[in-house]
Structure formats: C-alpha cells, structure tokens
C-alpha cells in the first residue's frame, strides 16, 4: 500500500512540477520579454487556440477506442495538465484583465466556465467514486428508477399486508404522510452531496416514535420498513453522486465546442480589423 501511494504521489508531483514550471516560464516571459514584443497577443492567441484544439480532441479520442492512439488514461492526464496550462495562457493572452467587447466577453465567460467545470469535474471524478464504493448498494445509473420502483412496491406490499393480515391504520397513515412521496421520487440531493445524515436521522426518529405505538408484530413490520427506507436513502445517495459525476460534462463538453467556434470568429474578427497583422 505504501509503495502504491508513493508511486501515485510521485507521478502527481512530477506532473504538477512540470506544469508549474511551464506556467512560471510563461509568466516570466510575459513580464520580461513580451513588453518588447507588442504583437505577443497573436503568438499567445494561436498557442491558446492550438491548446484548445488539443483539449477538445480528448473527447474525440474517447469515441475511437478501436484505434491505437495511446491509452485513454494517458490522454486524460495530458488533458488535465494541458488544461491547467491553458488557464495561464488565457491570462497572458488577455493581459490579466477582463476583455472588452461583447464577443470577447462571451469567449472569456465560456473559457472560465469550461476551465472551472473542468477543475470541478476532476475533483468529482477523483472523490465521488470512493464515496460511492464506501456507501455500498452499488446500482447502475439506468437501473436506479427500476430499483426505486421495486423498493416502493415492497414497502406498499408491507403496509397493505399488515402485521397479521390486516393493515394497521396508524402505520398506513404514517406511510402515507411521511414515506409515500419519499419512495416515489429522488430526495435529499444536496444533503447527500454534503454527506449530511439529517434526512436519515429524521426518518430514524420518526420510526422510534412509531415503535412506541406499535404492537410486537407491528414492530417487526416497522423494522422491515425501516430497512427499506435505509436502502432508499442509499439509492438516493447513489443517484445524487452518479448524477453529479455526469452532469458537469453537460456544461464542460458543449461549451468547449462553443468556445472553439467563438474562437474562430474571434480570429476572423481580429484579422479583419488588425490591418497589418503578421
């Protein structure tokens, strides 16, 4: 285990060091060399465009797993480090200031969102799988509605059958008022993301209260129902984290393509109005 951790840390340190080195070199060049070279935005602009093309290519690489282009893992690592460097190039290109003009501002906004969602996505991709593994009740995303439906049917069957063949009105009322909706939809999305157990604790105290009014065989029924509620919480947890693992991509990928299109427009505009551009 120790060796494994050391190897991971070593690889990350090397990657981060190289990235930092490149970023520092860029900033040093910006401070010392670029003032003597007024057309540097053309250089950094083309560099940034090239880097963005490269970063976008990662998504295409994933769509062609049948070609020998290096492993997807290697491409993801490159994507992460080059993505970090692209942020520094963007800062240098924009002269560390928010751009003027609506097109440039849209581009800057798009870039910022893509960059930030990338960072968030990276964190989510590294953090959430471990949480899901620890939580248990692993369920494929597509099967979550089916499992939820199954849990609901099991809970309803428990209530309808009752403790001794007859539905207890107290328990039925409890189910209808407190648990009916809970079993029919995903709940506590944000609190699951925050790893809060407030909702579980709330249900637990409700069950504790119900136990006071239940007969012995009704208590067994409530215990079974509590198990189903616990499973539903785990399912909601799986749902919240698995949605998060996917949803950031819905901002990151479309905006990356939009950014490329906007950048082409930006290049056309720049060359149309720059006169004696190189």
């Amino acid at each position, binding site marked *: 285990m120790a060796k494994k951790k050391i190897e991971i840390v070593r690889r990350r340190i090397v990657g981060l060091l190289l990235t930092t080195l490149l970023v520092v070199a860029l900033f040093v060049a910006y401070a010392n060399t670029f003032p003597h070279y007024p057309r540097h935005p053309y250089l950094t602009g083309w560099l940034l465009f090239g880097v963005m093309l490269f970063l976008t290519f990662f998504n295409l690489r*994933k769509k062609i*797993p*049948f070609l020998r282009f290096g*492993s997807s893992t290697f491409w*993801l690592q490159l994507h992460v480090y080059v993505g970090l460097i692209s942020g520094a190039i963007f800062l240098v290109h924009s002269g560390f200031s928010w751009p003027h003009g609506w097109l440039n501002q849209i581009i800057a906004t798009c870039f910022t969102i893509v960059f930030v969602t990338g960072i968030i996505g990276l964190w989510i991709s590294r953090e*959430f*799988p*471990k949480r899901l593994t620890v939580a248990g009740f*692993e369920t494929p995303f597509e099967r979550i509605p089916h499992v939820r439906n199954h849990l609901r049917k099991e809970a309803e069957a428990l209530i309808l059958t009752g403790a001794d063949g007859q539905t207890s009105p107290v328990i039925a009322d409890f189910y209808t008022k407190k648990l009916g909706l809970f079993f029919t939809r995903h709940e506590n999305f944000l609190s699951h993301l925050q790893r809060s157990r407030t909702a579980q604790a709330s249900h637990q105290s409700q069950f504790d209260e119900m136990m006071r009014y239940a007969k012995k065989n009704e208590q067994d029924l409530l215990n079974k129902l509590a198990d189903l509620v616990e499973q539903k919480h785990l399912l909601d947890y799986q749902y919240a984290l698995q949605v998060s693992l996917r949803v950031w991509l819905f901002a990151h990928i479309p905006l990356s393509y939009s950014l490329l299109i906007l950048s082409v427009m930006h290049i056309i505009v720049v060359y149309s109005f720059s006169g004696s551009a190189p």
Partner: protein
Amino acid sequence: MAKSDTNLSTLVRQAERPHRWEQQLDANMTEEIVDMLLGYEPFASMDPSRFPSGTPLREILRFDTAVRTFDTGEIVIRKDDYGTSAYLVLDGEVDVVIRPEIDPRLLGRAPSVKKGFIARFAQLWNNNREPEVWNKKSRRSNDSYNTESGSVYLQDYPRVVSGSQTATLGAGSMFGEISALSRMPRTATVVASSPNTRLLEFSWEGLRDIMKYDPALKARIDKIYRENSLKSFLSNHPLFSHLDEHSYRELCDAAQLETFGDYNWSGAYKRLAKDGNASTSAHEPIIVKEGDYLNGIHMIRAGFCRVSHKYGGGERTLNYIGAGSVFGFEEIAQHWKNTEQSLQSTHTLRSLGYAHLIFIPTAALEKFANRKWAEQQLGKVSLPEPTIADSDETDEAPSAGLMEFMAEHRFLNGTKSMVIDMDRCTRCDDCVRACASTHDGNPRFLRHGPIIDNLMIANACMHCIDPVCMIGCPTGAIHRTSFGGEVVINPDTCIGCGACAANCPYDSIRMVEVRSKKGQFLVDEDFQPILKATKCDFCVEQTSGPACVNACPHDALSRTNLTRITPLTQWLKRK
C-alpha cells in the same frame, strides 16, 4: 387417515419423476442396432450381469451412443477442440494426424479476421441503428465447422496428409476418450481415411458408466492414458523430467488417476449459489484432509482445487490451485530433509467444481523424483498466508476475504476477467459505449457484478480456462479461437438453443432476439423468435485489443488472468 390423504392431495400433484435418459444421443438408435453393437468387441466380451438394473448395458448403448458414418477426408475431431464424446471404430479406418499439424484453414479454421484501418473507422457510422441486427456476412464464419452439414471435409485428402505423420486406427480402436473424460482439448485431429467409415460415438456419461462396470474397458482406457497422456504430462514436470523410458513406464504404472466433482459442475454450482451455499466448502469433495497422513503428492491435471486450513470454528481459504499445481510436495520434501518431521498434511485440499488429478504415491516419489530439484524448491512453493483484515496491510499476500470471494464465485476460472477498481471508476460507461461501438452497436457485457472492497468482477465473459459453456453446444458455434484461445460464438452456426447460456456459471452469455436491418424481429415458421447467444469476444476483430480497456480514462478497468491470484493483487497494487 382419509383426512390427511385429502390434505396431502391439495399440497402435492403427481408428476413423472425425471430420469437420466430423457433424450437419446441419437434418436435413430434402435434395438436392432443395439443387438448389432453387442456383437462387436468390446461389448461382446462384456458381462451384462455386472451392470446394475438401473443402468443396464443395453440401455447405455441405446441412449448414450450413436452410430456415425464418415466419408474419406471427413474430419471426426479437430485438435484443440473441446469435445464430450469418445469414438470406437466399428468399420473402416481413421487417421490420427500426429505431425506436422494440418493447416488450420483446411480444418475450417483461420486466424480471426481483423478489421482493416478503413473498416475500423467505418464503425463510427456503419453500425446498425437497430439493436441485435443479424447480418450473416458480418462476422467471422471461417473459424468453425461448415454450417451446411455440421462437418468439415478435407478436399484431396491423400495430398493434404501426404507430408504428415499419421497413425491409422482400424476396427476395434478407440480414440477421444481422454479428452472426453478429463475435459481437456483434443490433442490431435482425426480424419476418416476410408469410405463409409462407421464409428460408434459415446457420450462421456455412457463411457464413464461402461468403464465403471466393465473392468476390462477401464483397464484398456487406463493403459492408453498411461502410455500416451500420462507420460507426456509427467515428463514435462521438473520433478520427473530426468527419467529414462523404463523409469517412466514404472512411474506411470504406479500413478493413480483421480476425478472429483461433477463433470458439468456449473449446474450444481448455480443451485448452491441460488441457495446461498456457494461460500461454504462443505459441498466440495475432500481430496486430502488436514491432519491426514500424506502418502503421496497430488498433481492437478485439469480443474481447480481449494486449499484451506482450520481457523477457529471454520476453515480459511489460503489459495486455489489449478492445472500444473502440485499438492503435498512441500511436506514430503521437508520430510526428506528432516525425517523426524511428521508427514501430516498441513492443509485441506478440496475439488472446486471438477478436478482431474494424478496421485503419485510416496514410494514412487522417493524412487523417481529429482530430489536435488525438490530440495531447491523448498520454501519457494509455500502458500502465502492471507491477511485477515485488509490486503493493504502487506504487499505480498491477498486478503483472506478476497480469497474466499474468488473461491465462492469460482472466478478462478477466468483468464481474461473484467476487473474494475470502483475507487477509480466514475460510472461514466465509456467502456460500455466502446464495447457497443465495436460490436455493431450492441454492448457485450454488463458493468455490474459482485463487489468486494473496491473490486468489481463485471459480468463479462472471462474466457475461462475450463469453458463449461462449450459443453453441449450442438453445432460447435461456441468455440475457442485457434490462435488467441478466446471463447467466441459464431452467430451463423448458433441455433439459439441456450445450452451455453445455461451452462455458464457466471451468467455472462445472453440470449438475444435478433432483428432485421429494419428492426423487425426475425421469427421461424412457427413465429417463434430466432435467438442467438451473445457475449464478450475480447474484441478479436480489433487490432487494438479490448475496446473496454482502451476506453477507460481513469485506468479503472483491466482484463486480468484470475487463474492465479498474483496478477490481480499486482493490478490492485499498481501505480
């Protein structure tokens, strides 16, 4: 009394008890043919009174044998195929091709056709929009038997075998029995060399029963085995590789052949798993019990065994061992070094499913084993002690939980199992999409399966070392590729019987209802849907290897050989 009878009738319903001979191997087998067979050797010399009334010789012949006729050049069995039948030559002759082997293409096999560069790219837009479209021209169809007759002919047979060394077998000769009984691949190709060669095909069950009740046939098959397979097996082991011809003969005579467990173990295993009893070793036949006097070594020829020892009130699995492994060697070698050390087994050996072993008694071992090599090996082959709590505590040994998990689910059978590190897997399903994109839009595995700690063994074909799915395939559609050894299905010859899916202990084969390009379900003349068996083929048509592994950006998925625990523990400890 009457009342209780009435109650009983409400609880039970009379039904015919299922019996062994529900179906004949050959529906055309008649009493007249059985009479004819009883006139042939070895049946003519058999004493029918030795057979119990439940399994008489006549019935075995009627239900478990079939008379097959082959023409010159027609292949009876092919080298490396898995078969469950043995053959007796009734009339005519067959040639056993010894060396060089016949060109695989002439045998109806060819290297899996890899897709070219353009064809690979075309998968981006050429895949069918409808699921499970049956495109007869789309898959490798040259890696299996001819679809028309279920047989393969060698055209211009004399010329094809003119450069090969062959052994001719005439009337009364048997072949194929070792492969059928020990579930190993065929070791040679056998071709009919005379017109209208008549062979009697035995199912392995029939052969097993006849051997059980007729000592002469058992002795004959044992002799063939000792002369051919056993000598070859023993001479390849460093313990005995130094022996001369005479010594081998003596050693082979001393060796005992042992078979444990069910031949088709998947059915029994599935029942155990369903009842939740697969995790206990109580149902596994004991080969050697811990504490028993060790009177020899057990060499595993085929199948798997669980090695365990007593721990508290139960037993803890230390390892599972497969073909080529030896049990009991460490203790005996230690005893040679220090004669005061007791010769008791320190572990229990159980058969997991099915196991075929060779037992070498201590006396033969002392006489023939290479002691110098044996003493050099001391300490190298000892079993690692699994840790109780956590595999991360040590870099060497797998956790006890992991060992039990692997044995309970019988994952030790997989040579290319899909293992997923759930701490890294983002559940993005890029692997599933990659699989679909390389299989005409249809994923061939489920990213779901049993989990232990952060390890998931996904529901994908493991390309087993002991592919029980191949037992009983009536057309040979499911087969191993000649080159990589992957277990693949030829959709053109698959008749959709579902035998492979039912046999697979891991539920990795799915029966699908095939469709036309327009998405219409294909049905037969009775309007029953046409089914095909589907599973992971390890991307044999792709040059870049398995798409699932290539597509995972988080290094969370691997195809790993689980027949030994080391590759898995190394992968879990990677990077």
